[in-house]
């Protein structure tokens, strides 16, 4: 017996409508309203919040956030691909060990992990201690409360999100294709760029989306590692809601972020072809 599966989707649909679609609609409506003198909502429709988002000040934050997200994605890709390749080509017992090691950070609280990075990069942290001990430095390097520390935090936190989709593709990869390429005269780089990377495109694009989008909206890591001077899109939005009490402007910024994310999904579809899944095993 086969049942129509429509009824089974009702709970999920209700959940999504209540906790995703309705809130997004609220945000969309708020973004078109105005802030009153004391932070209250004034019910007059205007596009004022959107035009304000294109002020030089905010454009700068947008640009910085986009660049940081792009950089994080690139670094994650650069490190995640060899990592995924190593795991996928390891022997069975090593493979599960390496995968477990990749997942271990998720067993620790996110905030604790970010503070750990703060400690490692800190003035009295192991890196500075080692550099001073070896005589390379006389005074400690100040690395925390900077964009650099934020980037380190982003890469550390999001590396598994890049590695796993690539691993999924490589796990099912027919490695005799690499031998075929060598046999036909391709050298190392040629094998990588003509066969291995094009065939891992699905994993690379999925990984890029899974890193780029959350990093673009990330506010905890910049908050904890970036210090007061590092303002990124995520913090900007949080600030509008919690400190500036400018909900309509915060909502407009959030809507722009949502549109940017939808844009990158569209880009993914264009890159991996129509109907492609986010991660296809």
């Amino acid at each position, binding site marked *: 017996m086969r049942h129509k599966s429509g009824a089974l989707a009702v709970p999920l649909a209700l959940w999504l409508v209540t906790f995703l679609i309705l809130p997004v609609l609220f945000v969309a409506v708020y973004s078109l309203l105005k802030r009153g003198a004391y932070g209250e909502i004034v019910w007059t429709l205007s596009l004022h919040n959107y035009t304000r988002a294109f002020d030089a000040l905010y454009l700068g934050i947008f640009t910085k956030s986009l660049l940081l997200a792009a950089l994080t994605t690139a670094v994650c890709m650069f490190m995640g691909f060899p990592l995924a390749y190593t795991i996928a080509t390891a022997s069975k017992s090593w493979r599960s060990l390496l995968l477990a090691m990749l997942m271990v950070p998720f067993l620790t609280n996110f905030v604790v992990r970010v503070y750990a990075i703060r400690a490692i990069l800190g003035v009295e942290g192991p890196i500075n201690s080692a550099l001073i001990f070896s005589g390379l430095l006389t005074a400690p390097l100040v690395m925390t409360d900077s964009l650099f520390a934020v980037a380190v935090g982003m890469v550390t936190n999001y590396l598994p999100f890049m590695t796993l989709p690539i691993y999924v593709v490589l796990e099912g990869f*027919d490695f005799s294709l690499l031998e075929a390429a060598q046999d036909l005269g391709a050298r190392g780089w040629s094998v990588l760029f003509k*066969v291995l990377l094009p065939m891992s495109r699905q994993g690379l694009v999925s990984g890029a989306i899974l890193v780029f989008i959350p990093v673009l909206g990330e506010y905890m890591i910049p908050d904890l590692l970036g210090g007061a001077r590092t303002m990124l899109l995520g913090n900007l939005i949080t600030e509008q809601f919690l400190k500036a009490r400018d909900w309509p402007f915060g909502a407009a910024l959030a809507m722009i972020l949502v549109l940017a994310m939808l844009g990158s999904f569209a880009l993914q579809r264009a890159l991996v072809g129509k109907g492609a899944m986010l991660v296809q095993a």
Partner: protein
Amino acid sequence: MLEMRGIDKSFDGQRVIASVSLALGAGEFFSILGPSGCGKSTLLRILAGFDHPDSGEVYLAGESITKTPPHDRPMNMVFQRYALFPHMDVAENVAFSLRVNKVARPERLRRVDEALALVAMDGFGGRRISTLSGGQQQRVALARALVNRPKVLLLDEPLSALDLNLRVRMQTELRSLQRRLGMTFVFVTHDQGEALTMSDRIAVMNQGRVEQVGSPQDVYERPETAFVASFLGSTNRLSGHFAGPVDGRSTHGWVDLGAGTRCMARLPRLQQNLPLGKQVHLLVRPENVYLGKGEGFAPESTVQNSHRNEFVCTLCDIFYRGATVDINGLWQPNKSLMTATILNAAALPADLRVGDYARFGFAADDAWILNPEGAQ
């Protein structure tokens, strides 16, 4: 032209190839035949350069290529599951080696067309690999390996994924392609029929060693080891004791099967130092066993001027196989089972029944004596 000298290879302490030496002539269709795990694929991978021998050398046209990486060897390989690049179309797959070797576009296009025509795949250039049937993928893999005009083509069980009819057709095509190109083919297979049909010479491998090298006739009709005899085609194996060479001839010997029955059979070159009384096997192909009904029936043998061994068995099975009939008989004195494959079923007595007595016979020249412990 292609030569391997003293190749040894172990994986994790497990010896997979043990002192293999082979020499291949130019333009030869050379098969490496053996059961799975005998080391034949590893040997091919050593030729291609994917694996490196622990010791020993590989020579191509007199020069050692043992340390040459795969991309610099003038040999190409057809992989077992073709290993076609799924992200490229047929023409891009075939053009791959030309592209990485920086062959100019007009020349490239011409040679891709030429290679596709060679395997009767003209007009398929723009097709995606996933839209091709197994046989078509096989042809594309061949075209891709041939387009760069290698000196040697390596084929790793390329027909094993095809269904029977297609496999038989591809055997013929591969063989005629090899003749037309005059190229050396090294063909790895576990299918003895395939090896016998296609090869100029066959190397039979077992447990990392080459047991025999020779023409299909050599390995089938004059096997030198018990393994070669049993791996190529089916054989009847009778156990007995060596009863010495036949007077004045070192080429034939006697085997005592017990119960006062002696059989004469050929003594292969490698078996000529057998001690008297040694436990041996007497082997004979089922198609060389003839059959007559009843104890007094005088059968017709196709082999003239040869000693005939005959004994009476009880028929225990009759299998009709279409073109042939297999008849199993039990020789009571030492419970040996004999199978006779009768090619001309019409010549059989019509009233042959299980349980009847029948005379099984074979010519001494069709049987041979082997030491079950291997060649001396």
